[in-house]
């Protein structure tokens, strides 16, 4: 058995590691504050937000307004742009001294980068890429729900003996909490020392396409391999539907559209009212990203395609025949409404 670095009876508090860029939180960080608040209310613990930044001007009040009881604010020039080792140093040292029960991070690129490092440093269990988080009624343990092989298998993972219980959560899984400006709490500025040895990795430059966030889309048009790169057609459809545009992994890997629009296991979990899926076969790794949709429409020339198993309305036909007709019909529909 792996021994905990501190006893579970001494462990207290739910911590959320917050990511932010350009003075704004990542969506998943807000989602974690919302769910963390609910979990903390269940267990009767405090919700603590971890905020690392270059200059200390970061978002502490916002974190309190979104549900934290307490903000630990660490600032140091080496924390202004995320690299693994300075952040791992600060978070691990805080955990070892303050002994939280649970640590939650977003399953973003950098959230996963940090979580994997921390779990080994702290010799504890990490439930990665959760699609739900609950407190087990009997044991009081954090239960993370994860999917295996796309959506085929759901497993509940727990970390009974070691602390903190760590989990990363995929963006879009939890609802964003409402900001309450009247909420108050305490902010503690943490003195940070980062050894020279942790500062050898350098980010030379960053380029951000202002990322599109499809997790909040109400209507979503999604293209897969069958679109054969013709995303111009899908854009017209999306415009006619007043929808956002998403894509399967194949379409993104082909370079047809940006990575931020990827839906599925390695992309975003979406929950639109209407998802219109065009030319996607329906691999489990993809459908996990749309299964929470209210209504799913699938268009695919192969009547045996698995996508039809998970769709409400199925059109087994050539997308290049159907979509122009659909766009025309939608334009008529919208014009009719306006008139």
């Amino acid at each position: 058995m792996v021994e905990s670095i501190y006893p579970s009876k001494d462990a207290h508090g739910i911590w959320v590691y917050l990511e932010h860029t350009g003075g704004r939180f990542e969506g998943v960080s807000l989602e974690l504050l919302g769910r963390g608040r609910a979990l903390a209310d269940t267990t009767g613990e405090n919700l603590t937000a971890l905020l690392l930044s270059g200059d200390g001007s970061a978002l502490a009040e916002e974190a309190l307004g979104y549900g934290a009881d307490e903000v630990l604010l660490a600032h140091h020039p080496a924390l202004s742009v995320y690299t693994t080792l300075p952040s791992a140093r600060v978070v691990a040292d805080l955990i070892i001294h303050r002994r939280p029960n649970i640590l939650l991070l977003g399953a973003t690129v950098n959230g996963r980068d940090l979580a994997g490092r921390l779990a080994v440093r702290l010799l504890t269990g990490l439930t990665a890429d959760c699609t739900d988080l609950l407190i087990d009624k009997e044991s009081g343990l954090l239960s993370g729900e994860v999917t295996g092989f796309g959506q085929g298998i759901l497993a509940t993972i727990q970390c009974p003996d070691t602390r903190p219980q760590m989990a990363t959560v995929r963006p879009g899984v939890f609802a964003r909490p409402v900001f309450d400006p009247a909420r108050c709490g305490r902010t503690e500025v943490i003195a940070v020392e980062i050894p020279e040895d942790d500062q050898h990795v350098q980010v030379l430059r960053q380029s951000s396409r202002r990322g599109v966030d499809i997790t909040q889309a109400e209507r979503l048009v999604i293209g897969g391999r069958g679109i054969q790169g013709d995303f111009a057609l899908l854009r017209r459809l999306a415009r006619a539907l007043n929808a956002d545009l998403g894509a399967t992994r194949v379409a993104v890997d082909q370079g047809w559209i940006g990575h931020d629009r990827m839906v599925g296991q390695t992309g975003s979990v979406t929950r639109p009212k209407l998802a219109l899926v065009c030319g996607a076969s329906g691999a489990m790794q993809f459908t996990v990203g749309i299964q929470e949709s209210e209504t799913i429409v699938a268009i695919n020339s192969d009547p045996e395609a698995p996508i039809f198993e998970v769709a409400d309305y199925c059109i087994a036909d050539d997308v290049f025949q159907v979509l122009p007709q659909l766009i025309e019909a939608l334009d008529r529909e919208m014009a009719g409404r306006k008139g």
Partner: protein
Amino acid sequence: MREPHSIVCLKVVPKSEEVTINSETRTLDRSKARSEINSPDMNALEAALTLKQRHGGRISLLSMGPPLFDQYLRLGLAMGADAAYLMSDRVFGGADTLATSYALAEGIRAIGEFSIIFCGDESSDGATGQVPPGIAEWLSVPQVTYASRVQVVNSGQVLRARRELGSGFEIIEAPLPCVVSVKQDINEPRFLDFQRYDWAMNEAEVTVWAASDLHLDESRLGLAGSPTIVAGVNVARSSERRREFLEGSPQEKADRLIEKIRPWLRVG
């Protein structure tokens, strides 16, 4: 500059499209699934081979699994790797990411000094991407995850990589030795080199290690070394869908669809 030595971690996974779910036992049925090298791990190997072409040096392959997995390592040797190591022992089984990364890190230590550890960014069956950072922490070296371009600069002392972020990218430099995980499809893995094929398949030695060969701490391996437990397994709730097929000509289908989705259409 010392001769560069890359170690590529390869995971053999069941082809995910061939894994089915037994609805009675609610377990994964891998019996009909063939295996393959995890796809991004092939891109990691290709990245290492490209560096070897440019800077010389050698490449070792490391994997974990039953002895018959040596055939997958031989494919890597035929592509251009120089040595292969397979960690094969029942005590490695049932490992979560903590125990897996510990075992692999110990395998790497046993292989010897390295300049770069190459991994795929995540595995198709686990897909959590937590093992590469774990290996880096056990070995106390820097990590560069989700790399889409990798080069060695500064007289072979620094790894420069492009990392793909959610909404953009960054260019990052890390001193060697380090661990890098590469994204799927960042390159086109090369074909087997037929001049190496016979050697790789028949003559080359794949070193097979049991836990005891490496004097590993068994309490850190497999199930015993895994702090997480699977508390329950279920077939995912399949939301009941209508699965209603719309018929007719393309135009009729489009018109029928509009009738169905009218509640979700909105002007504005």
